[in-house]
């Protein structure tokens, strides 16, 4: 088969006789078809042009692929998928323990042991979830700025707002699915592990909308914060290290100082524990304090303050992110 700019249309599809090898029946010939690709020159595009809508979808799809490392080498996938696996394993272990105790010890033992359940999952897994955001978010923003791709995005039917909203929505989708998938595993595990799955479902069905809402809240918080930090550097590693450091230092520092100071000031210092901010919202959704926030002084503050604080830490980074990209476009 040949491909060429000036390939003449000779021999196309013409049966070509090939001499039979020596010793073979000389009456038989082998016929082969030689294929030729014609260069028909430049073709004007006459198909549909779907404009800005298609541009947004393309950036969104590309964002999802980048976040999960799809279509990239092993190095782009390893960290993301490691943390996704860890999140799944945590849920699986919780489901297996609860199921084993239920089956072999009895339902009363489950209640007596106060085994961790849906309301505790995000508290237990929050740090892994935050590290996953710290690793994944820079993949969506940093390379485009480092490699100078932004300029050729913005000369197409796509505004800076379209771009950043599509990227943000892509990472939010990934983080929401990653938040919901382990809870779904846990839900299936707990339902199937119960001797009476139907009874378990009827008694605990409210856990499903609760973990969906709580998962969306933690995904929204981590996505927005991680994207905002990633918008200020072209180096992925720098953004990731800064985010992980921010979460770890705020957790370590506020835990010790808040307890030592005590009172209202201690409660407010405890509010700066960045890992716990979405977990307090999770506690409000489930109506019970999780194993992680049980000792946090901030949990004693009124619900509206906890929700307001969460919204502040979500909306302000979102606005900063949006302004940052509007300015980058200029």
């Amino acid at each position, binding site marked *: 088969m040949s*491909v060429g700019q000036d390939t003449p249309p000779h021999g196309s599809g013409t049966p070509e006789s090939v001499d039979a090898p020596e010793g073979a029946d000389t009456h038989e010939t082998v016929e082969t078809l030689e294929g030729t690709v014609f260069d028909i*020159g*430049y*073709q*004007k*595009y006459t*198909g*549909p*042009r*779907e*404009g*800005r809508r*298609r*541009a947004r*979808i*393309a*950036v969104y*799809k*590309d964002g999802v692929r980048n976040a999960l490392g799809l*279509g*990239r*080498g092993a190095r*782009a996938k390893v960290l993301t998928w490691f943390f996704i696996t860890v999140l799944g394993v945590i849920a699986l272990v919780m489901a297996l323990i609860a199921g084993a105790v239920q089956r072999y010890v009895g339902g009363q033992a489950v209640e007596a042991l106060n085994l961790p359940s849906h309301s505790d999952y995000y508290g237990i897994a929050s740090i892994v979830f935050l590290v996953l955001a710290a690793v994944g978010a820079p993949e969506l923003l940093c*390379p*485009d700025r480092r*490699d*100078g*791709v932004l*300029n*050729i*995005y*913005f*000369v*197409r*039917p*796509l*505004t800076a707002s379209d771009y950043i909203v599509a990227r943000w929505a892509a990472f939010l989708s990934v983080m929401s699915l990653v938040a919901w998938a382990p809870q779904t595993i846990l839900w299936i595990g707990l339902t199937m592990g119960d001797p009476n799955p139907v009874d378990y479902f009827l008694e605990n069905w409210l856990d499903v909308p609760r973990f969906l809402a709580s998962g969306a809240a933690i995904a929204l918080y981590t996505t927005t914060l991680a994207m905002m930090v990633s918008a200020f550097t072209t180096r992925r590693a720098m953004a990731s290290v800064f985010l992980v450091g921010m979460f770890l230092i705020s957790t370590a520092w506020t835990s010790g100082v808040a307890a030592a100071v005590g009172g209202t000031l201690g409660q407010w210092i405890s509010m700066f524990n960045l890992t716990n901010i979405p977990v307090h919202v999770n506690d409000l959704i489930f109506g019970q304090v999780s194993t992680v926030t049980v000792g946090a002084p901030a949990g004693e503050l009124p619900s509206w303050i906890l929700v307001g604080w969460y919204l502040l830490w979500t909306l302000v980074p979102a606005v900063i992110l949006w302004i940052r990209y509007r300015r980058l*476009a*200029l």
Partner: protein
Amino acid sequence: MEALLTAENLTKRYKDVGALNDVSFAVSDGITGILGENGAGKSTAIKIFLGLIQPTSGSAMILGEDASESIAVRAKVGYMPEHDCLPSTVTAAEFLTHMAEVSGLPPLRARTRAADMLRHAGMFEERYRAMGGYSTGMKQRVKLAQALVHDPAFVFLDEPTAGLDPAGREEMLDLVRKTHRDFGISILLSSHLMADVERTCDRIIVLREGRVVQTGDVSDFTEETATVLLEVDTNRELLVVALEKRGIVVTSDGPGLYVEGPDELIYDQVRDALVEAEAPLRRMAPRRRALTELFERDGEDLRSGRNA
């Protein structure tokens, strides 16, 4: 001929600095070169037409629409930047498919167009390699291909031969010419290399300090001069003596001899000198002005040039 780009009294100021000052010009079908030194306003003008920045005053129309208002018009415009714009870990095929989709093409059509464009740009065999391993010439070809992948009506090329060796430069200029001749796409080519513009463009716009100082057809600027170029195989020195004996001023430049002649008489005198010196003539032609001379002339002379 209908104008594809029109700048009318276009002004762009950054605080106290004027990047463009009351600039007006029109660009029609063909290849137009935009020339100027650094800071002349070339990039600012291109960015305004691409909708990346807003003019302080005046209007910039592209394909009949206001460049600063219409986002939809960008689906019919391509841009090849001077700087790097290729992600290193992505293959050319994947990148072009994505860029075609961002320009509004449905996914299946985008994939087909990407393969076609890479073939036209001579990158078909390398399309599944990550672009981080490409040479400068290959990267320039992919940059051009991404600008054309959605079949624009008009394309801006910013220094398309930057960083290329002579062979690569020649290939890129061939591609640029082919883009207009075979693909029917009009081009605004920004360059500081006069030879590239002279060999590629039909028309030029010369900017200096944010103002248009020259516009017109390249052939007008490279018109014949009163100087005659002579090249001979042997007896060069004897020819110089024979010419000077006839009162002709001779200047030497490489293999050529330049003689000034105000009228047709010069050709008779050159003929006689050639006979006298027994110098075999290889070439004799009126010298054409080079585009570079535009920038060698006095600045005031440029400002008072045509259509300024």
